[in-house]
């Protein structure tokens, strides 16, 4: 399922992009999830699923370094995101882009400026090159005509796609998406699903998404990681189809309403 390019030299590709080791997440003294161990493989689409409030978005916040783990590590190529010097942290951050749940476009700027800001901060490009890059990234998500619009003028789905364009600004190898299909109609959801697969196919982007939408999990995810609300740890990791057939009972229950293909 995990399609690798033919020109691969095995060693580099076999190395996972991210390795999560014994991660325990807590708010104050309340453990949200404990002892998470998994890796994010190159060019896979990994879906993080589970009931509301089980800690999916919290896990995402740990993966991108917005929240400190209570225990354990998030390793990018062997380097700990949460315990490294500022310079390393800055380079590690360049390796992923993030789309937040409602897009989180900076409302005081136009869509184009939103995409150009990371470039202005972290790339040596001059103004004209930045604009070209931004227009190109917006074209990738099908929004090239929205360059001069304010984020408020966009629909929910367009906002999310613009946010993906912004996340892609610095050409990250990994894209984190927080609930890409929440609040979207089925058509927009399908469009986003296709976008994810296209990005993976054409740019080789690895995609990790937190989602509630079982249809999307079956449509795009190579693997699904199930966070259990009651046991407070991950209880399954594997292809959605396998989990729907032979996973633990609560995982099967969760994935049951998905279409079987």
């Amino acid at each position: 399922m995990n399609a690798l390019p033919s020109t691969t030299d095995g060693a580099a590709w076999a190395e996972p992009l991210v390795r999560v080791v014994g991660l325990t997440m807590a708010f104050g003294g309340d453990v949200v999830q404990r002892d998470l161990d998994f890796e994010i493989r190159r060019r896979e689409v990994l879906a993080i699923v589970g009931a509301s409030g089980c800690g999916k978005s919290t896990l995402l916040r740990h993966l991108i370094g917005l929240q400190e783990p209570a225990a354990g590590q998030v390793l990018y190529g062997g380097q700990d995101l949460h315990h490294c010097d500022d310079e390393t942290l800055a380079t590690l951050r360049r390796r992923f882009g993030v789309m937040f749940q409602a897009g989180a476009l900076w409302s005081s700027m136009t869509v184009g400026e939103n995409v150009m800001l990371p470039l202005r901060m972290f790339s040596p490009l001059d103004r004209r090159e930045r604009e070209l890059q931004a227009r190109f990234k917006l074209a990738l998500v099908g929004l090239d005509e929205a360059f001069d619009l304010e984020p408020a003028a966009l629909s929910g789905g367009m906002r999310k796609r613009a946010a993906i364009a912004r996340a892609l600004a610095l050409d990250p190898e990994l894209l984190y998406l927080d609930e890409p299909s929440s609040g979207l109609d089925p058509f927009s959801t399908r469009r986003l699903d296709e976008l994810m697969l296209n990005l993976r196919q054409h740019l080789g982007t690895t995609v990790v998404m937190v989602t509630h939408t079982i249809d999307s999990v079956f449509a795009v995810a190579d693997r699904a990681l199930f966070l259990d609300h009651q046991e407070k740890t991950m209880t399954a990791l594997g292809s959605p189809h396998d989990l729907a057939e032979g996973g633990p009972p609560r995982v099967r229950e969760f994935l049951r309403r998905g279409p079987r293909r």
Partner: protein
Amino acid sequence: MQLDATTLAAWDAGTAPALWRLLAPLRRQGVLVDTHGLPDAVRAALELALPAADAVPDELPAEPGGGGFLHAVRRGWRDALDTAAFIGEVLLALGRLVRGRAVIRWSDYARQLDQTGPMSLPIVSLTCFLIGLMLAYMGGAQLERIGAQTFIADVVTVGVVRELAGLMTGVILAGRVGAAFAAQIGTMKANEEIDALRALGIDPIDYLVLPRLLAMLTVAPLLIAYAALVGVLAGLPPAVGIYGVPSFEYLHKCLDALTWTHLWIGLFKGTMYIALVALAGCREGLHAGRDAQAVGAATTTAVVKALVWIVVAASASTVLFQSLGL
């Protein structure tokens, strides 16, 4: 347990709730309750509301623990620590700025400059004009009793330049600008825009707080000087019109009373108040909760905090400068 409803003649919308109140505790204890025999509509609604015999109750969020005085003290203490940490971070960011390593958005600075400065002029003019007017009018009434009307100029000049211009400008900016800072930044927080900055490695203090603080610090001395000028001139009409002080004498005495010490103390204190307004607004915005209601609360808190800080700073600095003999 079996329900016998054969004698039930009529039922209404209250029947199912009444039965539910009786039966739900039984069902929870695992007692089998058979609702057959009830009218269909009552039975259907009842079955829907009653917990299933083997249901696991949903875990409800725990009530926020500990009310009362101790809790309030602890919260206040934590809030004070947070504020101290925030001010420390701002100072660090200022240090980075001086060393040219802060990521600051100068277009934002320009926009804030415009919002805080020129846009505040009308309301600053109005309030300080009225303050000067009042001060001259009331001060004159007292001084007239000892025939010292010419000293109205001294009262107005010292009062306005040293204390009131800064105070009033601070209060106005707290309502006009501090609240806007909290609302802007709080909305960004609720919309995860702050997280989007942090995920990129852009420090929100550098990027959002510094331009606002610097804009406020830039306009503060100018606004205060302008407010003082308006206030002093506003003392002229009552002095001349009511107490018969010649206008040339009023202005001359004003210039006499206006020493450098009064001027710099007035500018210093006012600038300090305005910096506090900016800090309170930004801090409350950054600490806002994640929903729309929290943004409103942050805005209110920002204004209240700014006013309290201003009054505390005003008293402390007045005592300090008096004891220094300035």
